[in-house]
């Protein structure tokens, strides 16, 4: 039995689909951020898998994944700062109750 590239890409696709489902159905801002992280992770995994199977001699996919992880960390920190600010303004983090850009 061979572990070909397909074997790693199928869980990645399912992770992406779960992320999309959560992004559409969830109403809580933090839960939406969790779904976003799932989608970002499946993209990172794809970079690494393509790097390993198609271009095993180089490491560009790994470098891109490293940059993606760094940027995801920055993005999550800012998003959580915004969520805490919203909580301070309206008392919860439900997206259906956020109607104004400025309080």
């Amino acid at each position, binding site marked *: 039995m061979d572990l070909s590239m397909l074997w790693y890409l199928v869980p990645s696709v*399912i992770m992406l689909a779960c992320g999309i489902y959560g992004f559409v*159905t969830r109403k809580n801002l933090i839960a939406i951020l969790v779904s976003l992280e799932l989608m970002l992770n499946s993209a990172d995994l794809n970079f690494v898998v393509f790097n390993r199977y198609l271009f*095993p001699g180089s490491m560009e996919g790994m470098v891109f994944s490293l940059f993606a992880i760094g940027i995801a960390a*920055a993005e999550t920190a800012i998003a959580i700062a915004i969520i805490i600010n919203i*909580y301070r303004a309206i008392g919860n983090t439900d997206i259906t109750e956020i109607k104004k850009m400025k309080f």
Partner: protein
Amino acid sequence: MDSVGNIIVYFIIAIAMIFFSFKAVTTRKILRAATYLLFVLLAVAVAYFQLGYQFLGAVQIAVYAGGIMVLFVFAILLTHKPNDKSGLIDSHRRTWGIVLSGASAVVLIFALFYMPLLHGASLMECMQAGGEITMQQIGEAFTGSDRFQYLLPFEAISVLLLACIIGGVTIARKG
């Protein structure tokens, strides 16, 4: 032909990824969703280790499982009561979610099985072809400015992180 150990590890991480990512978006308790996300991140880190990218797996554990999850738990405990359950999803939203995620999954899986290049080498052949990536190679790739070297993005990301610190403090500050 891959070794039995590799195949067993693959099945463990694949089942963990699928199961926990499914639970992370369907559970109604937000703290549990964050915990399931942590398990997904750890499974992805194990996949990186298995593919031979030890440094990337270590970064995934340190930054995602160590840093981002702490931020998540911090934010959840600041904004929710511990036993809060989110309300039931209305059927309209659920239909949209199932349609969109199902459509994207079907299209992507069709594309995957349609591509001819996917039925190629096994993991063992690729690992032998690529060899180990040493820390020195990674360091040289990040600190040079030639082809396939990434000094400029590396510096840009440090400025981005500085901007992120200042922005986070400015946004979350009271008043």
